[in-house]
C-alpha cells in the first residue's frame, strides 16, 4: 500500500452529511434540548461546534469557553468567538482559575512541578463544567476527540475525551482539518499548531515527536495491518519510531475502555452485556 496524503482523502460533503445526520439523530433520540461542548478555539472543537450547529441549529448549541490564567491566550478566545459567531452558537465564558487553585489547595499531595498531573486536572475540571451544564439544561456533551489522538492516547482519561458522542473520532487529525475547511471553519484556526492547553507553550506535535501529516499516515498504515517495517520504508522514517507509535497505540487501550474487572458471574459488565445505544 502506498502511504501518501491521498489515502486520507474522503468525500467531505458526504462525511459532513453523515456526521450531521448522526448528531441530529442522537440528540433527537435522547430527547435532549441540544448540545454543549468545550470551545477552545482549536480546530477539533471548532469543527465539532460547526457540525453541531449545522446538524441542529446554532441556537441549540452552547459553547463553553473555559480559560485559565496559566494557558490564557487571547487569540484562542478570539478564535472560539469567531466560530461561535459564524455558526450562530451561544457561548458562555467561565474562568476556571479559581476552581483550579481551590483544587490544588485542597489536595494534600499536590505537586506544582508535576506538569502532567496538574495538566490533567485542568482537562478534568473542564469536564465537570460541561457535565453540569448538560445535566442542568438537558444537553448532550459533544466531544471533539479525533482518531489520531484517541489511537495514541493523547488525551486525558475522563477529561477531554469524556463525552456522550464523539462525532470526529473516526477521522484522523489531518482529515479533521480538511473537513474543517470544507464546512467553513476559518483558515487561521485550521492552520494553527494544535495544543491540548494543559501547560503554557505545549504543542501536540512537539510532544508526540511527529507532525500530524506523518503520524496520520503511520496510524493509517497500522489500521490497514501494514507491518512497521513497511510503514517506515514507505515514509522514510526510522523503524523504531514507527514501533514506538504502534506500542503507544496498544498501551493506551486502558484509556479507551470502561475499567477492567475480573469475571465472576455469567454475565459481566464490560465483557458480556451488549445493550444497543440509540
Amino acid at each position, binding site marked *: 500500500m502506498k502511504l501518501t496524503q491521498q489515502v486520507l482523502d474522503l468525500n467531505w460533503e458526504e462525511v459532513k452529511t*453523515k456526521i450531521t*445526520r*448522526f448528531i441530529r*439523530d*442522537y440528540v433527537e433520540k435522547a430527547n435532549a434540548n441540544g448540545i454543549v461542548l468545550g470551545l477552545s478555539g482549536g480546530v477539533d472543537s471548532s469543527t465539532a461546534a460547526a457540525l453541531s450547529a449545522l446538524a441542529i441549529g446554532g441556537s441549540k448549541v452552547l459553547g463553553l469557553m473555559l480559560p485559565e490564567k496559566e494557558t490564557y491566550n487571547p487569540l484562542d478566545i478570539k478564535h472560539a468567538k469567531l466560530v461561535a459567531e459564524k455558526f450562530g452558537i451561544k457561548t458562555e465564558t467561565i474562568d476556571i482559575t479559581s476552581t483550579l487553585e481551590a483544587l490544588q489547595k485542597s489536595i494534600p499531595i499536590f505537586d506544582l512541578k508535576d506538569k502532567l498531573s496538574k495538566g490533567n486536572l485542568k482537562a478534568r475540571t473542564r469536564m465537570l463544567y460541561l457535565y453540569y451544564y448538560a445535566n442542568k439544561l438537558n444537553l448532550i456533551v459533544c466531544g471533539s476527540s479525533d482518531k489520531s489522538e484517541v489511537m495514541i492516547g493523547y488525551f486525558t482519561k475522563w477529561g477531554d475525551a469524556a463525552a456522550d458522542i464523539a462525532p470526529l473520532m473516526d477521522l484522523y487529525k489531518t482529515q479533521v482539518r480538511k473537513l474543517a475547511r470544507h464546512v467553513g471553519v476559518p483558515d487561521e484556526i485550521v492552520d494553527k499548531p494544535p495544543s491540548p492547553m494543559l501547560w503554557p507553550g505545549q504543542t501536540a506535535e512537539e510532544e508526540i515527536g511527529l507532525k500530524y501529516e506523518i503520524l496520520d499516515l503511520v496510524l493509517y498504515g497500522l489500521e490497514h495491518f501494514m507491518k512497521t517495517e513497511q510503514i517506515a520504508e514507505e515514509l522514510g522514517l526510522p523503524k523504531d519510531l514507527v514501533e514506538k507509535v504502534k506500542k503507544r497505540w496498544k498501551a493506551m487501550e486502558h484509556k479507551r475502555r470502561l475499567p477492567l474487572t475480573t469475571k465472576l458471574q455469567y454475565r459481566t459488565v464490560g465483557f458480556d*452485556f*451488549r*445493550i*444497543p*445505544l*440509540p
Partner: protein
Amino acid sequence: MKQKFKVALAQISCQRGDKKANIQKIEAYTENARQQNADLVIFPELSLTGYVVRDELYELAEPVPGPSTAAIEKIAKQHGVYIVFGMPELSEKAQATLYNTAVLVGPKGFVGKYRKMHLPTHSVFEEKRYFRPGYQTGVFDTELGKIGLIICYDIFFPEVSRLTRLEGAQLIVCISASPAVRRVFFEILTAARAIENTAFLAYVNLVGIENGLQFWGGSRLIGPNGRALSIAKYDEEDLVIGEVDYSDIKPVEAFVPTLRDLRPELFDKIKENAEKL
C-alpha cells in the same frame, strides 16, 4: 402462475425493539404498495425488531411461524399480497438458540422461511454471537413463480444465490441491513448475482441510524442482465415499485448462457479446497 408482476421495495427504518410499531409500519407500507398494484412487498433484514438490538434479541426472538408471523400473515391475507420480512427466530426446540430469518407469507398465509447461512462476525457485526447459521436454502413455490430468499452477507457467497437458482428460483430476494461503508460492495454484488444466475434480484436494505451505524438504503430491483430496473433513495425511507417480467430472462439466458455452461464438477473441487483453506 403470473409471468409479470410488480414488486415493492419497502425501504424502512425500524423502531428498535418495538415489534408492534414495526408491524404497524409494515402494514402501512403494504397498504401503500398494494394501492400501486404490487403483488410482492419486501422489507429489510430483521425489520420486525431493527438490526442492532444485541442482547435484546433473546427477548424479542419468536418461533416461526409464531405470533408475529401470524400478524403479518393477516396483513398479507387482507391485502392479497406476498410479503417478505426479516426477524429473529427462536428455535422451537430450544430457549436461547436463535436464527436470523427471512419469512415469506402470502394471500393464503405462511409460505416459508429461510435462515441466514452466512453470519457476519467481523467489524461492527456480531451475528455469530447470537445466531446459529441456517443449513437449508429457501426456495418457495408461489403464484409469482419460485422465489428464492437470501439475507445480506449471503450475497458475498455466490453459492447461495446459485443454489436457489438451481432449485428453480427466477426471482432472488435479498433482504439486508448494510451500513454505509459497504455500499460499494453491494452495488456490485447485487448486479453480479443477477447476471451470473440470469435471474431477477430484489435487494431491500434498511435505512436509519442504529447504534451509530448508518444504513444506506439504495434498495433495487435488478434485471437478469444486471441492469437496475428501479432504485430507492439513499439514506431515506422509500417505497419503490419495479416490474418483474420473467420473459425477459430468456434472451439474456441465451445471450450469456451461464446456466447452460455451468460445470458441476467444479463444485466438488470447491468443496475439497474450501475444506483445506
